């Protein structure tokens, strides 16, 4: 069985959804009530691969909402409690979706292996970052040419280059795509220098310089809400792949040759009988999902019960090949700029 740990995109959405599902006790509660709410296994689902293989899974809502980010202890508990529930339910491989993996990583939850009477087994969990990184690279390779960007001549900026997904994307770009130049952007200098050394190339840029020079911008860092960008200084055409969480780039850019693409989202080849992706505001909630969730499904399809994506900077090209091949074989495709230009399935 595979598992997905997710959460609502806002407190108001969470309340609305809880009411629909009949969780009146928390639907009517204020944020303090939600802070004390246990994680909920809200849905069981069956998924049939393009190969015909059937797997079962469960969706767990951690009852975390982004409004809790400023409450460190609460956020930590929400993630750990949801993971404990997944393990107690005997789920083999669970993906940490949305803020879940970000909280796990940034709040250093590896040190919290013991949750009550449960010792968390990390091998049952995956951040899903390998699949996300692979999907973002696919989105770049498939969509850039469609808006007239020749990758051989293109400058590709990676914002958040030194993170787990960012560094994997850089590795792929550098080894598999032949892009003209990789512009590396991140907050801390030393990891950037280390990454540049590892890649044997790429130039270190400020965000401002990268944005004005890049034909493609891959965002894998959350963008601060306060960031203001002058669209007129961007290249035309410019492909923006919004691989961060939450996806808020299209609020900031539109038109004038700027194409914003929801990064790290995949579409399954047929409808899945679940309701949970409506929570994540997917355009086609019966088919679309975060690539990290799909990774848990792929690992279950492949009987690969291991923490495939774990820790930071462990994503190799071989792992990306493995998960990418599995992704195509089982019927996933990367979401494109519009429904007419999506990647071919299988």
């Amino acid at each position, binding site marked *: 069985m595979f598992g997905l740990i997710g959460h609502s995109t806002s407190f108001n959405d969470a309340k609305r959804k809880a009411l629909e*599902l009949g969780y009146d006790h928390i639907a009517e509660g204020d944020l*303090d009530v939600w802070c004390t709410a246990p994680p909920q296994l809200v849905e069981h689902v069956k998924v049939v691969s393009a190969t015909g293989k059937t797997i079962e899974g469960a969706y767990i809502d951690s009852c975390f909402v*982004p409004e809790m*980010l400023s409450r*460190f202890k609460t956020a930590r*508990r929400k993630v750990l409690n949801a993971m404990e529930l997944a393990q107690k339910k005997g789920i083999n491989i669970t993906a940490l979706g949305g803020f879940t993996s970000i909280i796990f990583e940034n709040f250093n939850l590896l040190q919290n292996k013991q949750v009550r009477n449960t010792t968390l087994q990390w091998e049952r969990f995956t951040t899903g970052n390998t699949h996300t990184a692979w999907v973002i690279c696919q989105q770049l390779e498939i969509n850039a040419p469609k808006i007239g960007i020749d990758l051989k001549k293109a400058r590709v900026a990676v914002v958040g280059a030194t993170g787990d997904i960012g560094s994997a994307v850089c590795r792929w770009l550098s080894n598999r795509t032949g892009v003209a130049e990789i512009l590396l952007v991140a907050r801390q200098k030393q990891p950037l220098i280390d990454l540049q050394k590892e890649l044997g190339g790429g130039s270190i840029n400020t965000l401002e310089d990268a944005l004005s020079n890049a034909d493609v911008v891959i965002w894998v860092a959350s*963008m601060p809400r306060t960031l203001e960008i002058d669209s007129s200084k961007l290249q035309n055409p410019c492909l923006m792949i919004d691989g961060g969480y939450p996806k808020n780039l299209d609020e900031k850019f539109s038109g004038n040759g700027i194409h914003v693409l929801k990064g790290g989202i995949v579409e399954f080849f047929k409808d899945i009988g679940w309701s949970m992706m409506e929570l994540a505001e997917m355009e086609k909630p019966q088919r679309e999902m975060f690539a990290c969730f799909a990774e848990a499904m792929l690992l279950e399809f492949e009987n690969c019960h291991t923490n495939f994506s774990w820790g930071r900077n462990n994503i190799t090209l071989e792992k990306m090949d493995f998960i990418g091949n599995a992704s195509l074989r089982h019927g996933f495709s990367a979401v494109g700029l519009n429904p007419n230009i999506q990647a071919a399935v299988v």
Partner: protein
Amino acid sequence: MATIASPEVDIDHDIQGSPLELPDFSAESYKDAYSRINAIVIEGEKEAYDNYISIGNLIPENAAELKKLAVMEMKHMRGFTACGKNLGVKADMPFAKKFFSKLHGNFQEAFSKGNITTCLLIQAILIEAFAISAYNVYIRVADPFAKKITEGVVKDEYLHLNYGQEWLKANLDTCKEELIQANKENLPLIKSMLDQVATDAEILHMDKEELMEEFMIAYQDSLVEMGLDNRQIARMALAAVV
């Protein structure tokens, strides 16, 4: 939506502050709060002993097993009494008796009417879930002596919760209505008991929000085990909110 880079999310500071800071066990304020919390635990274990013996009278075929559970509670009581002594604290037993009086009264009334379901819900589910949640939170901030004792106790308490769960699960068809009614009357008491000790618990570095969450997790798990569905559980849990 907030992002991880939002100004209100100060990750670096949070990580530095993340290891749980232990309180000063010798501080007067700590001992003062401990005198009430410790008393509640001692009284709780004592009443649990009495309650399991009583339930044994209602379910004679299980009386031997219930006696075993009761004896464990007595052992816990002695353990927690030692925890108080170890810190040089005199437990405020009158406070604890009053603290449990309403719940105790409800148990006695159900017992006198032979309402097994209500008795089990109060003792084997609500009180056990309350104890488990409090002990789980306490273990993280307890002095080394008490930590060891509490770790042993919490393992036993899961067995007790399990006993009640299994009985109610086996009899769910006939006891559901009484269970829902008993929940309605007693769950709010647990909530108000938690509110009453929140200030003292805070001095012991036990966070009220965490206590409530731990309780809701243990309680929900238990109701799921009994075979109640999400909607029924949601309706029952509502009694803790309003």
